[in-house]
């Protein structure tokens, strides 16, 4: 597994100085070393969990502290980090940029394989691995939501990163597709960092970080982390139908 080190990594926006007027903390300085195979991140909308995930492959650079993946700094060694850390978004449509499925996977492979023929062969193999062989030459826009998410995963994993960061990959999916995508994610050889609202998925992880109000408020064993999150939500939010 890769070694992801956050050393006081935080994100503040809209600033001339980190504490100046108009600045807003998106993620307070966070320190953690992530080496487990399955790491979950849970938290409310807008809590900062996506920012934490985006720090890990350099989509967001820390304004304080550092983030390192296997010793590579996400700012200084950005290209090398992105080769190691794949990223999967909530909405796969934003991630699919080529007209057909096989062409989208081929696009990912351009950095790794110069021969067009071998790229095509490899792309078809990857699509078959993800159950999309029959859709290789279909338009990406004709796929269902679950198939699009599978294709997005195929595009990211085709280049065999050592870590996959998935930012709410099942949020837009129905139950069957959620199970399909989740089973695929948990069967990966790669290290997985999973941002999710699905507490059942969080419980399947080896370690879970709970993010609230721009800071990591709990970091530990999944059962305890989920309990902590549920309790914190229960304290703040009246349940539906509770009246008032």
């Amino acid at each position, binding site marked *: 597994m890769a070694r992801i080190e956050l050393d006081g990594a935080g994100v503040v926006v809209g600033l001339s100085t980190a504490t100046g007027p108009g600045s807003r903390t998106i993620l307070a300085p966070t320190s953690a070393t992530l080496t487990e195979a399955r790491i979950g991140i849970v938290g409310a909308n807008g809590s900062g969990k996506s920012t934490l995930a985006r720090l890990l492959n350099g989509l967001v650079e820390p304004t304080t502290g550092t983030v390192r993946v296997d010793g590579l700094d996400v700012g200084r060694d950005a290209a090398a980090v992105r080769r190691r850390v794949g990223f999967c978004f909530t909405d796969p449509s934003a991630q699919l940029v080529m007209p057909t499925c096989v062409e989208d996977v081929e696009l990912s492979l*351009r950095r790794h394989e110069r021969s067009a023929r071998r790229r095509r062969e490899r792309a078809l193999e990857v699509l078959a691995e993800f159950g999309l062989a029959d859709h290789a030459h279909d338009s990406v826009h004709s796929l269902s939501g679950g198939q699009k998410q599978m294709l997005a995963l195929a595009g990211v994993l085709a280049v065999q990163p050592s870590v996959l960061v998935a930012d709410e990959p099942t949020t837009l999916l129905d139950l069957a597709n959620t199970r399909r995508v989740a089973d695929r994610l948990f069967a990966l050889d790669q290290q997985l960092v999973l941002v999710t609202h699905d507490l059942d998925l969080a419980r399947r992880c080896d370690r879970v970080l709970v993010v609230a109000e721009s800071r990591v408020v709990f970091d530990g064993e999944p059962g305890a982390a989920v309990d902590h999150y549920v309790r914190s939500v229960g304290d703040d939010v009246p349940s539906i139908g509770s009246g008032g």
Partner: protein
Amino acid sequence: MSDLLLGAHQPGDTLLHRLPVGAKVLGLAVFSLVVVLIRSPWAAAGFLLVALALTALARVRLRAVARATRAVLLIAAFAGGLQWWWYGPGKAIETLLDLITLSLAAVVLTSTTSVNAMLDAVVRWLRPLRPIGIRPERVALALSLAIGALPATLSIARETRDAARARGLGRSPRAYLSPFVIRMVARSLETGDALHARGLGDLD
């Protein structure tokens, strides 16, 4: 939305599939020039026959042909109508046939050439310009994104229009255009992030 694509690549082994991309692009450019420069309804009919023959040779699916002609027929009918009014029936028929011919020729190119093959070709052609700061992979990627963005843009336009109608604001340009522009900018940022995450900005 897939029906809005000009012509997605159809794998095959016809002569046109096997031709190098450069030859096809050059052929399309020359053919288009000839179609536009030679002014005669009879010549236009002949060019249409050539385009149909190429379509058959490339074994382009009838559905793709229907889509391409359906999309262009509206424009062709409008342009032909204007030409009829201004210059008479000969000119109108020539314009109509020429537009259908050109769209068919474009469909033959896109159906027999994958976007990645086009990217490879563009990268090869632009490589000599690298010393003056042109980054071939980035230019090729931008071109492919422009092609790929069309269906997504139309999809967002349709969703935004439906949302405006659902709120009873179907006739308000502001209720349609403002969210459309905002969503397009948001989609562009998301696409940029996705490309960045896939390391595609690091291609050069």
